[in-house]
């Protein structure tokens, strides 16, 4: 009787451990409610560098993308459309491209032009600080630099709800 209970406790412990391992540690270095990590990186097009802090005071949509990631490529023209729907002094889109070979990203941008800057980070330091778990991932950051929403992946229908969230944040005027 005692033996059976002991075995079932071991079983329960093993199951808990297994579940924990399976679900993985949700180690988000940058989650909702946290301050978005500051970064400065060279721009993909070789112009001035891209810095997150430079856009404090605006609502920022930070998008991590790569030329080898098909959903990322689908999102770019849609994000460009989204950008045009808000005044540029209120809303800014910033992208971080993680291509090991930035030339591939540049080639893609030649075909699909966007009006927002892309930083290049071939070593992946910025996605590391943000704790990216999948490609693409984007962060909606408010005027005070706090992350308000994290978007994993990208699908066609994602833009509409995103627009609503941006609208709400743009409407809020921080003290």
């Amino acid at each position, binding site marked *: 009787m005692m033996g059976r209970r002991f075995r079932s406790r071991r079983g329960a412990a093993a199951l808990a451990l*297994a579940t924990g391992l399976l679900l993985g540690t949700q180690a988000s270095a940058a989650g909702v409610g946290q301050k978005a990590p500051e970064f400065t990186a060279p721009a993909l097009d070789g112009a001035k560098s891209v810095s997150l802090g430079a856009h404090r005071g605006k609502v920022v949509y930070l998008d991590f993308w*790569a030329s080898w990631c*098909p959903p990322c490529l689908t999102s770019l023209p849609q994000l460009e459309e989204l950008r045009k729907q808000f005044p540029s002094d209120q809303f800014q889109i910033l992208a971080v491209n*993680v*291509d090991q070979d930035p030339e591939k990203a540049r080639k893609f941008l030649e075909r699909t032009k966007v009006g927002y800057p892309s930083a290049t980070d071939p070593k992946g330091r910025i996605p590391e600080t943000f704790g*990216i*778990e999948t490609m693409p991932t984007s962060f909606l950051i408010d005027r005070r630099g706090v992350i308000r929403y994290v978007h994993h*992946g990208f699908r066609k229908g994602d833009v509409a709800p995103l627009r609503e969230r941006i609208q709400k944040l743009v409407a809020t005027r921080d003290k």
Partner: protein
Amino acid sequence: MLRLAVSLLLALPLLAASGCAAVKPWERDVLARPDMAWEPDTLEAKRNSHIRYSKEASLPGGGAGGGGCGCN
């Protein structure tokens, strides 16, 4: 013996899950290449499978997913 084999088999995915967080989501460039896919050409894979299944004794082994860009 059977219990050992079964527990090893069940442990395999757990072992894999626990230790090998080897490649980060933004480091999937090489894995996303079409020539790194399990079956780079779907029609060729189906065709080979069909011919071998018809001309030899064994089974088309099928295959699991995984690898690739890991994108959403």
